[in-house]
């Protein structure tokens, strides 16, 4: 027997499929939707439909975009000689927020994890190598690849894998540093980060 009317149960089930939504959150959302004015619900439905219909992956860097190539790949002011490799589109946003990175991106949509059956062929890697040839890259020679995958064992393995792939090509391959968050107190930093910061200290 269903606890709620069928359409409600269906909605709760759909919400529960979403990441970090459990039974209780799903119920709360479903009940909220039932209380919402119809126009607002329509707006939500439309927003979801639009995002599915209008957002595609950039054929060059795999970032989410409305226009192909995306605004980074088609920008004449970005440095197409430096490519920053990230795991997810939201990692790209994090790098972009610095406003100090002027290069372009490559989004992998994941990281290597044999446990979860994610191997190199499951990452969006295939279109990275062709980008390294000037004729495929607005005539610009790529000089550096920055590996900005997450500082987890999976992110590290992914960076290692790509590093191995690219090293023989003779270009500069770098890995982002790990250490202290800026603007916070030493006392608030967890011991693992502090440990890494000590190991990676540099002379001034």
């Amino acid at each position, binding site marked *: 027997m269903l606890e709620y009317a069928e359409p409600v149960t269906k909605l709760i089930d759909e919400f529960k499929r979403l990441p970090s939504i459990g039974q209780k959150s799903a119920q709360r959302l479903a009940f909220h939707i039932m209380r919402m004015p119809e126009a607002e619900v329509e707006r939500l439905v439309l927003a979801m439909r639009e995002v599915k219909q209008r957002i595609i992956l950039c054929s060059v860097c795999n970032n989410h975009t409305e226009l192909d190539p995306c605004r980074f790949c088609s920008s004449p002011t970005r440095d197409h000689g430096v490519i920053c490799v990230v795991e997810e589109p939201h990692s790209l946003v994090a790098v972009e927020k610095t406003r100090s990175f002027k290069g372009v991106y490559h989004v992998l949509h994941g990281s290597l994890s044999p446990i979860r059956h994610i191997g*190199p062929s499951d990452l969006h890697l295939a279109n990275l190598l062709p980008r390294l040839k000037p004729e495929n890259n607005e005539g610009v020679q790529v000089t550096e690849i920055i590996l900005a995958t997450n500082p987890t064992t999976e992110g590290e*393995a992914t960076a290692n*894998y790509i590093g191995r792939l690219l090293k023989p090509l003779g270009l500069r391959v770098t890995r982002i540093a790990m250490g202290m968050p800026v603007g916070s107190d030493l006392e608030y930093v967890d011991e*693992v980060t502090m*440990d890494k910061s000590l190991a990676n200290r540099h002379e001034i």
Partner: protein
Amino acid sequence: MLLEWIEASNFRNLSGKIFWGPGFNIIHGSNGQGKTNWLEAIHTLARAKSFRTQHLQESIKFGEQLAVVRGRVAHGADIHRDLQIALQGNTKSISLNGKREPLTGYLSQIHIVALTADELDIVRGMPDARRRFLDRGVASLQPAYVQTLMDYNRVIKQKNHILRNSAEREISLFETENLVAPWNQQLIGLAAQVHRGRCDYVERLNQVLERRVFGREEVTLNYVSSLEGKGDLDDYQGLIAERLRLRLPAELAAGHSLIGPHRDDLAILFDGHEMRIYGSAGQQRSALLLLDLAAISLYNSWHNDYPLFLIDDVDAELDEKRIGKLLEYLEGRTQTFITTAKSSHVGRFFSQANVFEIEEGVVVGTAEPKVISAVEKP
């Protein structure tokens, strides 16, 4: 550190609150009354883990939904912290001073060393028990080691998956090498940290080991790397990289990782003989005690503080001579919690101790009048 009191409700058959003394605390009672349950409550409060079961929900009293263990720990004269662990179904929630606390911060509040029947595996069981003993010790001195170890185990797990998959699907050695390489590269760095951490710890243990407290034989410890005899251990990274390269075909055939500190062991020797094989039951118990005392002493020299020491069923584990020597050694050092069923021991050894008589999980009598417990039968 000092555990001032502990309060349990619906934790196995326990209820009520016990105010502990600073030195020896004897938990005395007949079998099946809940002596060990009180030790387990202390262990669970300190480590958010039981020494009896992997599944904490087994500690919830039958028919109840929620078990709670609370306690207050003092660091020095003026710092008192309230710890709580609540078990409900499969979930445990921990809090410090009434606020939820991440596990890493919580676990550093109380450090305990426990002498229980399971711990005998360290001196006579398989190597994994000894590796766990060492890892616990290293982590008690450098907390960041916990993350190193977690990362190492994670890398091994991921690598094993590749090896198993390659073996099952008959993927070529060349291709497997490609897939394994990024994990091996991390493995080398992490393995070196684990190796160094454990070697340092064993060296320190050897320095503080009171070799002859319990017997005539001299006990020594020796960290035995699985790479021993394969090359120059001083260049550990170079050596393990070489071994990983050479042994990949074997790893592929086995379907799991064969190289790394997850295959290492700690040799416990008496007069040069291996304790695990040649030691008598009594010698093995003595050796375990020596290890625990050395761990306590190292913790003290590092933190200028003593961990809590838990001894479950002291008469089963130790004879009278050893109990006497042990208590002499611990006097004025650790806050110690001991369970025993023998009343003769209570009078003979523990005249200085606070004695708690346990019946059906609650304290029914204490030997010192200042120690009063709120006894409420469920």
